[in-house]
């Protein structure tokens, strides 16, 4: 069982002063799949992510990751177990170059990050690996560009490269395509498809064509609760999903 599902939640609940943003959610993410979380605005998707990565404390419920109970862990420790997230608003280190961005992640993996007495030139041996990762996401020519100066779509790619540097087992992507133009969307979608060969991916996305093309399985949340789960083709036929999310006119 634990082998089949990399992440499982039981009765996951988050209450904000009487308001249930997430209520009694049981989620099972199959190892190696691309799992999409969709739902109308305010359904509790981001809150779910925050609970899974421990940025919020659940009010009730249990989270199992690789068969281990991580409900009480600190966010940094969850990340160390290979469960890494991206943010709804792009998260990079703006004044570090792309290479340095990736290197910071590599550095965590390989220790020495408390060494204040050594020169940072010891970090240079990460450079090759960092370049390799940048190359993977198509950012080779940006290696020495500070992240602030990169276009939006490239920042998202950089974020993914940084996440990959941690060699995670599972990635949580929160609206990776939000606010992107069409070309960028295609690029990132292709990238996600590519890396999904190696990692498990749980993502939130409003762009239906992306969801349709990428995801193996979709969970629909409304009002903090799971409404339905299944493949895209099944869900588009589900009246409840149509009403709550897709809208009446959806083909």
């Amino acid at each position, binding site marked *: 069982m634990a082998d089949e599902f990399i992440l499982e939640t039981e009765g996951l609940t988050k209450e904000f002063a009487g308001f249930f943003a997430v209520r009694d959610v049981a989620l099972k993410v199959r190892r190696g799949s691309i799992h999409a979380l969709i739902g109308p605005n305010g359904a509790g998707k981001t809150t779910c992510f925050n609970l899974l990565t421990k940025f919020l404390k659940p009010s009730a419920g249990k989270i199992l990751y690789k068969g281990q109970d991580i409900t009480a862990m600190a966010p940094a420790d969850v990340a160390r177990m290979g469960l890494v997230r991206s943010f709804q608003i792009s998260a990079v280190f703006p004044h570090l170059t792309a290479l340095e961005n990736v290197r910071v992640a590599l550095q965590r993996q390989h220790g020495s990050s408390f060494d204040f007495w050594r020169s940072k030139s010891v970090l240079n041996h990460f450079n090759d690996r960092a370049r390799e990762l940048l190359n993977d996401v198509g950012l080779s020519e940006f290696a020495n560009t500070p992240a602030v100066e990169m276009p939006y779509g490239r920042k998202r790619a950089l974020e993914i490269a940084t996440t990959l540097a941690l060699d995670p087992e599972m990635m949580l992507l929160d609206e990776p395509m*939000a606010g992107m133009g069409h070309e960028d969307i295609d690029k990132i979608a292709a990238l996600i498809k590519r890396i999904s060969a190696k990692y498990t991916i749980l993502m939130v996305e409003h762009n239906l064509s992306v969801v349709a093309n990428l995801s193996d399985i979709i969970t629909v949340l409304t009002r903090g609760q799971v409404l339905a789960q299944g493949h895209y083709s099944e869900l588009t036929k589900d009246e409840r999903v149509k009403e709550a999310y897709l809208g009446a006119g959806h083909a």
Partner: protein
Amino acid sequence: MPETAIAEAPAKAATGGNILQVRNLEAWYGESHILHGINFDVNAGEVVTLLGRNGAGKTTTLKSIMGIIGKRSGSVKFNNQDIIRATSDKIARMGIAFCPEERGIFSSLDVRENLLLPPVVRAGGLPLEQIFDLFPNLKERLNSQGTKLSGGEQQMLAIARILRTGASFLMLDEPTEGLAPVIIQQIGHTIARLKKEGFTILLVEQNFRFASTVADRYYVVEHGKIIDGFSNAELAANMDKLHTYLGV
């Protein structure tokens, strides 16, 4: 059309006259030159959509009209009055209202306060009952904190609050971004109703599918310039071009 007539019947001025005229508009953020001479017109009572890729300058165009960008030049005529030098509070009081991309719901205000925040600038705005008619959700949530609303409700609130003010010219910046399909449909209906009420709407959209359901005319923005424009009727003939412009 003489100015006095407009002042008397602002909301109902849907007689097809030219209400906004933008000529040679240029704008800067600090050192970076973003708009390089924008030219377009909006007629009273129509819905005009600006299309374009990320970073083309659509938002910047709206902000320049509204007077909330550091430096701009050229001419923007609203009801034949040049407003390029006016401050944004003056422009608002002339009857232009702006609903920003990021919605701008205030978290320290509850829904009612958010709704009542913009001062009434002229007679002729929608009364509250009519607004609640359009957005029944808001009526139920009047006392909750503004930012606790779901994304879609926030978007409704953002639109609702500028309808009260009596401004007859609305600028909506990507009202559908980040919204679920079901809510996008609702917003489409709302825009159609507003048009019927006599409002003039300048819309910015990435979501072409949505825009095509509401717009009368389109302009395409690229690199801070208007590079093309056509009406809804000419749409089919222009689809190929649109593909290359937008990469749809």
